[in-house]
């Protein structure tokens, strides 16, 4: 959409309808010139202006805009007469200084206000050991955090603006010579093709540029840790940073990465592998345990060993509902608690959470609305679903449980197997930036399995992941020949 070419004068007139746009007239004491200074007040750092700009403007001798530019101590100052440029820069917090009221040319001086959050610890991806810096909303600070960790020239940053109303700065970051150029091109192209008005957060970008928009599985990893981004950039991935969002997107990604927390790399590899396996088991448990409960109690009670059967039957004796209704009731209660707890203010939220959880749980068992065995299972399953380090995947896991429940109710164990096949097929369809989502499982990349379910020590990690098809597959020379020593030598 092209607006008719306007002059600077009309641009300033349009802006004048907003109360926070100011045009003030000052006089330079030495030369007697009048100065018209225009700015958008909320965007300008008045302290900088008063301290650094106005003394020079009012007291130093100059006769033209070019002199002004030389005198002012601000580096980013230039003369412009392009109305679009003037408008854009005014909204970024620049001052527009003219010598006459009707002048079309003026000096743009940077006096931007930068108010941002201080660097804090990561909230979602907290780790006990390791650095505790997290990204914040300002793109410049985020780039600073990243460049601090990869201080070489190959770290390339490509900047674009996305969003017709928000004009958000989006930076695509990658290591030139390591990341596959196809991946980089895919990302750049997709971002360029985005048509959106108000781009608020990186999650908007994820949803628009994802390969499969209709899938509940996230296809780009989002993280708020600069150390994680630095590590994956070194592996050969591409990062997308959005101004105004503390979450940075990483791609191409695979399913197994959503179950690896960055803390795994700070711990010993045996412990880290153990934690990863626990995480995988807890995810499988979380998805399958309540459907198995429904399936076995409805159709296959013969599967349960007879001692356990006694406990189960006593726990269900007074319940008036079939197992599926019990399970749905409890699952929905847990989802309710989670949603409500997310929106309550902190002080009230904790109390309600504890009271709601404990009281509702205990009371419903006492009232014989649910069995205590099921309460334990549902609570464990809910806890287990929160072990996924990536928040988006945790949501997906909780969602997938419901189709499994439905199929278990209809066809029992067969339904669970059927639903599993459906989910597996869906995962086979998914791609992340064009690369298969289930790698290194399928297509099987045996070397990449060193970092999938278990994490092998760093000496085994001398090659970059095959799925990324990087240009330099060797990271460092892994083998240092050690002289073999016999016993007591």
């Amino acid at each position, binding site marked *: 959409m092209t607006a008719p070419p306007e002059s600077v004068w009309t641009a300033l007139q349009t802006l004048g309808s907003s109360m926070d746009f100011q045009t003030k007239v000052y006089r330079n004491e030495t030369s007697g010139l009048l100065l018209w200074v225009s700015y958008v007040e909320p965007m300008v750092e008045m302290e900088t202006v008063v301290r650094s700009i106005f003394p020079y403007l009012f007291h130093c001798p100059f006769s033209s805009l070019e002199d002004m530019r030389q005198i002012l101590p601000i580096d980013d100052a230039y003369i412009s007469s392009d109305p679009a440029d003037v408008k854009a820069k005014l909204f970024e917090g620049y001052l527009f200084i003219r010598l006459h009221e009707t002048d079309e040319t003026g000096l743009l001086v940077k006096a931007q206000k930068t108010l941002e959050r201080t660097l804090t610890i990561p909230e979602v991806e907290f780790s006990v050991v390791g650095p505790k810096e997290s990204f914040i909303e300002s793109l410049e600070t985020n780039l600073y955090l990243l460049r601090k960790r990869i201080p070489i020239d190959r770290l390339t940053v490509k900047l674009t603006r996305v969003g017709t109303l928000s004009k958000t700065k989006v930076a695509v970051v990658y290591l030139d010579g390591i990341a596959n150029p196809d991946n980089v091109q895919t990302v750049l192209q997709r971002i360029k093709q985005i048509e959106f008005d108000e781009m608020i957060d990186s999650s908007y970008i994820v949803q628009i540029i994802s390969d499969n928009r209709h899938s509940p599985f996230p296809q780009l990893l989002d993280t708020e840790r600069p150390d994680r981004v630095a590590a994956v950039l070194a592996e050969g991935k591409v990062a997308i940073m959005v101004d105004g969002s503390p979450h940075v997107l990483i791609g191409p990604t695979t399913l197994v990465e959503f179950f690896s927390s960055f803390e795994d790399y700070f711990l010993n590899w045996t412990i880290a592998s153990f934690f990863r396996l626990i995480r995988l088991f807890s995810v499988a448990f979380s998805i399958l345990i309540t459907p198995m409960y429904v399936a076995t109690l409805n*159709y*296959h009670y*013969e*599967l*349960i*060993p*007879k001692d*356990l059967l006694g406990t189960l039957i006593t726990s269900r004796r007074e319940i008036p509902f079939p197992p599926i209704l019990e399970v749905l009731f409890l699952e929905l209660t847990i989802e309710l608690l989670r949603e409500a707890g997310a929106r309550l203010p902190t002080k009230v939220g904790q109390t309600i959470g504890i009271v709601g959880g404990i009281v509702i749980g205990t009371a419903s068992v006492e009232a014989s609305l649910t069995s205590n065995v099921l309460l334990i299972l549902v609570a464990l399953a809910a806890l287990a679903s929160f072990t996924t380090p990536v928040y988006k995947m945790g949501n997906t896991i909780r969602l997938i449980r419901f189709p499994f429940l439905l199929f278990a109710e209809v*066809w*029992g*164990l*067969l339904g*669970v*197997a*059927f639903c*599993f*096949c*459906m989910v*597996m*097929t869906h995962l*086979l*369809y998914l791609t992340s930036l064009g690369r298969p989502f*289930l790698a290194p*499982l*399928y*297509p*099987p990349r045996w070397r990449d399995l060193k970092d999938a379910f278990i994490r092998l020590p760093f000496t085994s990690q001398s090659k970059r992941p095959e799925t990324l098809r990087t240009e330099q597959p060797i990271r460092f020379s892994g083998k240092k020949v050690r002289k073999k020593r016999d016993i007591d030598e």
Partner: protein
Amino acid sequence: MASVAERLQVSPFMTFYIIMSMQIGVGVLGFQRVIAQTAGHDAWISVLLAGASSHLILIVLYWLLQQADGDFLLLHQRLFGRWVGGAFSLWLALYFAAMSFVVLRTYIEVIQVWMFPDLQTWEFSLAFLLLCLYITVGGFRVVVGICFFCLIIPSYLLFTFWFVLDHADFHLLLPILDHPPSAIVKAAGQTTLTMLGYETILLFYPFIKRGAQSAKWAHAALLATTLFYTLLTVLTLAYFSEKQLQRQIWPTLTMWKMVELPFIERFEYVGIANWLLIILPNVCLGLWCSSRICKQLFPIRQKTALLIIAAICFFSTLFVHDRKQVDLINTILNRTGFYFLYIWIPCVAVITYIVKKVRGNV
């Protein structure tokens, strides 16, 4: 027609998984009874014989594919002319569609007898075929993915046969070779149904990168399947006496009753539910091969052909009602597969050889 874009191809290593997952299907559950009827306790030798012959046939198949430049249907066309060759190809398409249908119906029968007697054939058939459509519409890569996972995930079932070993008496296998060779060979013919599946290589060969290198993986798959079946037959013959075996329609399922785990009582339910994963690639690949042939013969899209074939399979499953009819369709498929692999393929090979000598090339 024989060259496929590289992004649609899979690595030659996957041939192992495709062929092995195609071969291991619903026959594993009950093939032991039929061959034990013919060859008695020497039935395991028949299985070995059948496996060895399958290697020979596979060599012939690969040779034919080399001659035909990867396109077997083109070979039909070149040898027999457009219409007769097309008729043979169409018959092949029907064969693959029948394979899907028979596997599905047999599995439904197993469920109806062992797990859910009230299960309506049509509802399971419909859901299963819809799932297969979902898979096949994704293309060959998704089908191979299913083959891969559906071979690896149920492989833990191998360990369940450990429990049967305790009760097995290997003396039941002696004396070896006291049946006439004719009986052993006849029984080998009867195991063809369980060994079927590798003829799909004729259709998916263009989708394999560096196709000639896939031969070693295909042979490895045949070897693995043969060994698996032989071991299973040996175990079955050691566990059941001959008369006992004649009364079991599904000896493998009965053997699973022996599994004793601390947290599960009747393991055969778990086994049957896992069997869904094992037959899934059979049905999907059968539908895929069949629709691909139709796409090349008629001017229709593969998706349309797929829908039609799936609909035909669905309606066919409704017409098969009881044990006798299931047995009948299995026997028909067995015979058809046998004639195709052991009679038709060698004929085509001989004709190709002669034509090559006469004309110089096919």
